[in-house]
C-alpha cells in the first residue's frame, strides 16, 4: 500500500529531548527530536496502559512512559525487558528543515 507523507511543521518546533503530538488520519503520533538532532515518530500509546509517550522522559534513543516507566526503543518500537510489547513506528524525513511523516 502506498504510504503518504504529511508535513507537520518545522524542525525547530520540536525542542530537543521532548515529545509532541500530531494527529494524522485518526492516529495519534508522538514525535521526538532526540539529542543527535534526528527525529523519531511512534504511536502515542504505551502498549501497557495507553500512556501518552509524547510526555515521557527521552534519553538517547529511548523514551520512558510517563505513567508506569516502561522503556521503549524509538527506533524499532520495542518495549525493553523485563517488560514486553511493541509500538508502531513511523518513518520521518526532514527536508529543508521541514518534517514529514510517512503513514
Amino acid at each position, binding site marked *: 500500500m502506498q504510504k503518504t507523507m*504529511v508535513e507537520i511543521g518545522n524542525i525547530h518546533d520540536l525542542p*530537543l529531548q521532548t515529545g509532541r503530538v500530531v*494527529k494524522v488520519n485518526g492516529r495519534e503520533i508522538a514525535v521526538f527530536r532526540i539529542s543527535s538532532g534526528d527525529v523519531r515518530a511512534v504511536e502515542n500509546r504505551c502498549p501497557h*496502559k495507553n500512556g501518552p509517550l509524547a510526555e*515521557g522522559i527521552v534519553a538517547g534513543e529511548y523514551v520512558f512512559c510517563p505513567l508506569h516507566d516502561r*522503556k521503549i526503543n524509538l527506533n524499532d518500537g520495542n518495549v525493553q525487558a523485563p517488560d514486553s510489547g511493541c509500538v508502531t513506528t513511523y518513518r520521518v524525513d526532514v527536508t529543508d528543515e521541514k518534517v514529514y511523516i510517512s503513514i
Partner: protein
Amino acid sequence: MNKRKLVLVGNGMAGVRCIEEILKHNADLFEITIIGSEPHPNYNRILLSSVLAGDADIRDIVLNDYEWYKKHQIDLHTGQTVTRIDVETKRVFTDQGLVVPYDDLILATGSLPVILPLPGADKQGVISFRDIKDCEAMIEASKQYKKAIVIGGGLLGLEAARGLLNLSMEVSVVHIFENLMERQLDPVASQLLQQELEKQGIRFLMGKQSEAVLGEERVTGLRFKDGSMESADLIVMAVGIKPNVELARQSGIEVNRGVMVNDWMETSLPDVYAVGECAEHRTGVYGLVAPLYEQGMVLAKRLCRIDTPPYEGSVVYTKLKVSGVDVFSAGEFMDGAETRAIRVHDEFSGVYKKIMVRDNKIIGAVLFGDTSDSNRILQMMRSGSSIQDLKRVSILENRSAEANSGNDLVAALSDDEIICGCNGVSKGTIVQAIREKGLCSVEEVKQCTSASRSCGGCKPLVANLLESVLGDSVVVSRKEPICGCTTLSREELVAEIKEKQLTTVKEVMFVLGWKETEGCSKCRPAVNYYLNMIWPEEHEDERESRFVNERMHANIQKDGTYSVVPRMYGGVTSPAELKRIAAVAEKYNVPMVKVTGGQRLDLLGVKKEDLPKIWAELDMPSGFAYGKAIRTVKTCVGSDFCRFGTQNSIRMGIDIEKKFERLNTPAKVKMAVSGCPRNCAESSIKDIGVVGIDGGWEIYVGGNGGVHLRGAELLCKVKTEQEVLEWTGAFLQYYRENANYGERTSQWMERVGLTAVQAVLQDSEMRRQLNERVDKALSVLRDPWQQIMEDKQASRMYEELPVLT
C-alpha cells in the same frame, strides 16, 4: 571576672586549631586576639594544591570563616604583621601601629619558603608555593605564559608541578638529587613516581643544580652549574621551608632552628608559647599538620589548666596529593643494617609496598600505587605492636577487598587509639559522638568531631567505624548508587558536582562516566534536582529532565488528561476566587471539581492544550500539587474563630506557605498548622507539622499519612512565629541537602534519626546558614503558570502539531 588576654600571632592552621581547642575546653577563660599577615581567615594550607589543581575554590578551603571569629568574639586582625614583642610590659606591636597587651602569648608564625639565593631570583615570575597569593600568581601566570620550571622535586614541588600541568602549562621539574621525594621515598618508589608523572606530562631534570635565573625584568629561563639552560616564563621555587623565627629571635626568645619549646610548648620566656611549624621540640621541626595539631591540643589544655600528658613528639607520615598517584610514606624507609624489610613489588599493576621492621616492630613504610593499607600500618607503628605472630606478607595484603575486614580492624582498636592523626581524634570520641548524636555519615562525623577535616586520609577508617557502630543496614543504604547508569551514590554524586563544579545534567553524565550517555528516567530528574539544589542561581532548570508533571505543571492522570490545583494559601479562599474557579470549570467542561486532602480545589480531567488558557483565566498561582516540592499547608480554624484555639494557625499556615511556596524538595512536602493540641489539621502525620500551645509552638517533623503511616516526631518547641519560620527553613534546607532524591522526610528521618537532625539544627549558626541557603534557592523561583502564559513559545508546546499537507 576579668578574662585573661590571650594573643595569637599567626592566623594559620596550628595556632587557630589551638584556639579551637581552648574554646572547646572553656570558652569564657580568655579574651582572644589573633593577628595574621595574610588577608584571609584561617584556611587549609594542605589543600592549596587542590586549589591549584582546580579541584577546589579558595572559599572551599577556608577552615573558619569570618563569622566564626565573630561568633567566638575573637578580635581578628588580618593583613598585618607583628613586628615586636615587649616582654617587659607584655605587649605586641604590629607594622600598622596596633598595640595589643597580653597575659598569654602564642607564637604560631609558621614557616617561610626557602628562596634560593640565585642571581636573578628577584625577577618577575619567580615565586614560591606557600600561600593563597602564590596560588593566585600561578593561576594568573598560566593565562599569559606557557612554560614553567619548578625547582624542587619534593612533596611541595611535585604538587605545584601537577597543579601547573592542570593549568595547561608545560612543566619541568628541576631536582638537585637523582631521586624524587628522597626524604620520603626509597629509590624504587622514587623511580616509579617519576615514571608515572612523566606519563602525565611532567619533564624531569634530575641531578641538576641551579646557578642563575635568566632574563631582563621577567624571567626567561634558568642556567645550571653544568652550563646547560632551560627556558621558562615562570619559576616556582619549592625547595623547602624554614621556621619563621625572626620575631622570636628579636624578642630575645631562645631560638635554634625553630623557636625552642619544651613538652608543654613553653618557650624560654614566661607566658609565651609556640606551636606549629615555627616551633622546635626535642630537635624536631615539623612541617606536617598532624604534629602541629597535637602540639596545639597539649597547649590548649595547658592554658585551660587541664591535666594533660606532655607532648612527646609525633610519628610523621606523608601522602602525596597528586591526581592519579597514590604515595604514602611514614617513619624510617631506607634499608639499613639493623632493619629488615617486607617487600611486594608488582610491576604489572604498578604497586610497590615496603614495610621496615626492627626488633619485630614496624618502624616505617613506603607504599606506592595502593595506599589503602596506610592507616592500618600507621596504627601498627604508633602502637608499637609486635608483628612476630603475624604472617609476614599478610601485613601487606590488601584486606579491604574482603568484606568487613576494615570493620574487624577498627573493632579491634582500643578506644584511645587515634583515628584522625591530623586532629587527634580518638576512636572513643568518634564512637561516642556516633552513638550520642546519632551521626550516620562521614560528613557528619567530620562536622561534629573534626575527624578527617584536614587531609582526609582517615576517611575510610571513619567510614569503617560508622559501619561497625551502626551495622550493615546503614552501609547498604550508604553505598547504593542512584540508578543503574552509575556506580555513584547520592553523597558521592553531590560531592563530585561541587568539587568539579559541574553545572548541567549532560556535563555530570559525561564527566562522571555514566553508562548511558543520557541517563534514564530515574537519574535525570535526580541529577537536575541536585544541580538546582547545589547551584540555585547558576543552574538553569532542565525541562527535558523533569518528570511530565513538573514539565507540564499539572498532574497527569491515567487517561492522559491533567488535573489542576491552584494555590490557596493555608486553605483559605474568597468568594471571588471561588467564582473564577467555577467559571473556568464550566467554560472548559471540567468533568470533576474535588476538594483535596490538603484543603484545595482540584479541577480534574483537563485536556493538555487547555492548560495554559485555564491558568490564564484562573489568575491564581500554581499549587504545585504535581511536584516534588512544597505542597500545601493545611490549617485548622485557630484562635480567630475556635473556642479552644490558643494560636492563630491560619495566619501561621499562610505565612509558612507564602515563604516556602515553589521550593523544590527531594520529594513532596506536606505541612499543617494546628492552633491547639487537639490538632484538627492533623499535623502529626505531616512532613512538617506545627502545633500551637499556650505561649508557643511545637514543631513536628517526618510524619506521613501514606502507605507507611508514621507519626511525626517533636523537633523542638519555640516561642515565636518567627522562630517557627526559622526552624522550618532550616529543616527544609537540611532535608533538601541531605536526603536522596525521591526520599520522603519520613524515610529520611528513619534513616538518619531525629537526634542527628536535632544536633545540627540546635546550633543557631547552622540554622542561620541553612536559612541563608534556602532563601537563596527561593529567591530565583517564579510561578511556572505565570511564566508559561508570558512565553508564547512555551504555551505553543501544549498544542498539537498541525498537519500541513
